């Protein structure tokens, strides 16, 4: 198997799985309980919180565990919106966001809020000047994803943050970091809110976190027993947190090496593929985008057919555009950078992890080269 769909999810690392198992079957206690073994679990939860927060340049009290990226995005946006006094406050995001952000903004728009969607350029970048233009005195929140999940463009969060602050220092800045965390060097981020998801970096599904700086007023998400300082009630997912902690430590230990390795593989694959006829790169240049995402269009081929043909050869990728009759050729995210029609229909996303190898890139490119010859003989006529 050659797994090139790491932006969909990743394999849980052995260390993360062992940590999860330990906190499921041995130290399975509810960290909110009063006795000593439970306190021990709570210490582990707090240890992971401190480590993750430090990697983002934040305080432990600014990091909240959630069930994943979608929940973090929802709390960041709706929790902020629900404490706004101004019912027509402005909320700014982009046309290329993940549905976990995009659909929440659409919901805000339906409540009468003033929602603005910024269009990225053809490389998938948001122009800070255009953002500054959109921010006004009624702007409550800006949300711009750190790394785009389909074509891997990376935003300059510092420039965007300055642009916002210059126009309205009261405006909060959220970034969906689900594809950014662990794929770019760790360090302080110039944002107020940042979403991360464990299963994108070899932790299990169902665990994630929201970074929320002290100054943010936010009503939080689901109500209940008041865990996560009232921001996100629900029994603490200690096994998920411990697993995410283990995955994070592995990631941090090999950070520079991983990033370099993935970048090399991506460039290798890009060189192979772009040398084939009628293959176009979507999004940023291969050397500029995130190290793990490569999106190419194979003209004259339906992405889903190529996907299934690769699947038959044990190679797993994803396509931005489902071939199903209901949403044929429609992909909002690709369309936002001008990739439409035949080019969108032929788009394939390759997303890497540190586990991939150069041999896998060569074999994938070789199979695609053969397949293109066969598949391109059959077009609708």
């Amino acid at each position, binding site marked *: 198997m050659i797994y090139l769909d790491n932006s969909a999810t990743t394999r849980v690392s052995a260390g993360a799985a062992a940590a999860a198992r330990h906190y499921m079957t041995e130290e399975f206690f509810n960290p909110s309980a009063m006795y000593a073994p439970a306190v021990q679990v709570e210490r582990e939860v707090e240890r992971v919180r401190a480590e993750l927060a430090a990697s983002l340049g934040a305080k432990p009290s600014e990091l909240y565990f959630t069930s994943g990226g979608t929940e973090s995005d929802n709390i960041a946006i709706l929790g902020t919106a629900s404490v706004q006094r101004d019912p027509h406050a402005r909320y700014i995001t982009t046309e290329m966001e993940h549905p976990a952000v995009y659909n929440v903004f659409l919901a805000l728009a339906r409540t009468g809020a003033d929602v603005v969607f910024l269009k990225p350029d053809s490389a998938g970048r948001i122009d800070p000047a255009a953002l500054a233009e959109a921010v006004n005195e009624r702007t409550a929140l800006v949300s711009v994803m750190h790394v785009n999940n389909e074509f891997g463009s990376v935003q300059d969060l510092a420039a965007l943050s300055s642009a916002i602050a210059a126009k309205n220092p009261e405006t909060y800045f959220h970034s969906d970091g689900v594809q950014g965390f662990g794929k770019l060097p760790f360090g302080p981020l110039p944002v107020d809110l940042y979403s991360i998801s464990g299963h994108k970096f070899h932790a299990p599904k169902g665990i994630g976190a929201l970074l929320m700086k002290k100054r943010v007023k936010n009503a939080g998400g689901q109500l209940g027993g008041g865990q996560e300082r009232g921001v996100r009630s629900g029994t603490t997912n200690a096994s998920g947190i411990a697993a995410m902690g283990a995955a994070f430590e592995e990631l941090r230990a090999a950070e520079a090496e991983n990033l370099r390795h993935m970048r090399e593989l991506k460039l290798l694959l890009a060189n192979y593929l772009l040398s084939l006829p009628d293959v176009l790169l979507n999004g940023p240049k291969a050397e500029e985008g995130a190290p793990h995402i490569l999106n190419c269009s194979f003209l004259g081929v*339906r992405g*889903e*057919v*190529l*996907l*299934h*043909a690769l*699947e*038959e050869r044990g190679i797993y990728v994803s396509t931005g555009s*489902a*071939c*199903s*009759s*209901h*949403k044929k050729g429609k992909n909002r995210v690709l369309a936002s950078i001008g990739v439409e029609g035949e080019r969108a229909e032929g788009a394939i996303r390759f997303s890497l992890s540190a586990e991939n190898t150069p041999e896998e890139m060569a074999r994938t490119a070789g199979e695609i080269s053969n397949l293109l010859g066969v598949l391109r*003989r*059959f*077009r*609708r*006529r």
Partner: protein
Amino acid sequence: MANVLLIRYGEIHLKGQNRGFFLRLLKEDIAAALEEFGAEVTLGQGRYYASGIADSCLAAAVDHLTRIFGIWSVSVAKEVDKEFSVICETAAALMQEELAKRGGSCTFKVFARRSDKNFPMTSNEICPELGHVLLERFPGLSVDVKEPEVSLSVEIRERAYVYTNEIMGPGGMPAGSNGKAALLLSGGIDSPVAGYMMMKRGLELECVHFHSFPYTSERARDKVVSLAALLARYCGTVKLHIVHFTDVQLALYERCPADQTTILIRRAMMRIAESIARKNGCKALVTGESVGQVASQTLDSLVVTDNAANMPVFRPCIGMDKYEIMDIARRIGTYETSILPYEDCCTIFTPRHPVTHPKLDRIQKSERAIDDYERLLQEAIEKTETLVVSGSQASG
């Protein structure tokens, strides 16, 4: 006062000397459907009785019965002694429930049928007598003999049966009582309906599906398995033959005129289906075609398609509008699965301008130009995968 299911059969009434054969088959089907409820099934005069079912399981048992072909209707009846006073008390108890459901007042009518002529009252005596008793007992009741809200029925047979409900069954003939046919099952709306209609007439079905990986996905295949399972709810299990058809399609695409692709593919499907049908003892093919619905279903196209088959082709949807077919699909529970979006992933085999009035000789000429046509079909047949799909696999 025990509950018993009265199960009426439909068309079997019309049978002559072979009625016993159909009645035996239907009894087996009923017994199999009610086995899990521990029911005892007996055949009485013009009725089956199913007894011994726990009250809490009656609704589920009736639900199972409404999917058994050959059943006209089912009533949940109280089985009591043939004693008029007992019948009155039972009727009163049932009427009390009906009144409670309707806020204390309703119209009603009594129906009576006496097949045990030893019972001292005739049907025409039971109706007014019982009606009178109920009217005296419940001030909220009034009689309406034309459109009663509640029909209270009394049947004097082996014992006395009293009931206020009649749930319609699917009708038709017992499953498999008319031999076996092969259904060309796509992922669409029409073919499951066609299969259902022929099963209802007592045909046992084997399903043949044409899979075009990588042009259709694993999910499309799962969808067809789900549809087969939904059909199998009406007959226990069905065999599903999945034909790996891609190479045939590619050959037809490359070696024949573009506008003929659709009709050529249909003919190849008929031939492969017929071959699988013969191997499995099927004597006819069933398709979901409806005249005029799409280019491959014009009369001329149907004539050319039909020509490829050497066994009868049944098309029960042939004279139906799409909306009528959709109505049946909803009723039999296949619609929601049929509209899942995993079919026809790619339209490359569907020409933009298909011939709508194909000429048989030209189509045959195109086929003759493919010198290894038979071998291609044979290879697809050999690569066929066969699954046995059970109705218990059906979801929803």
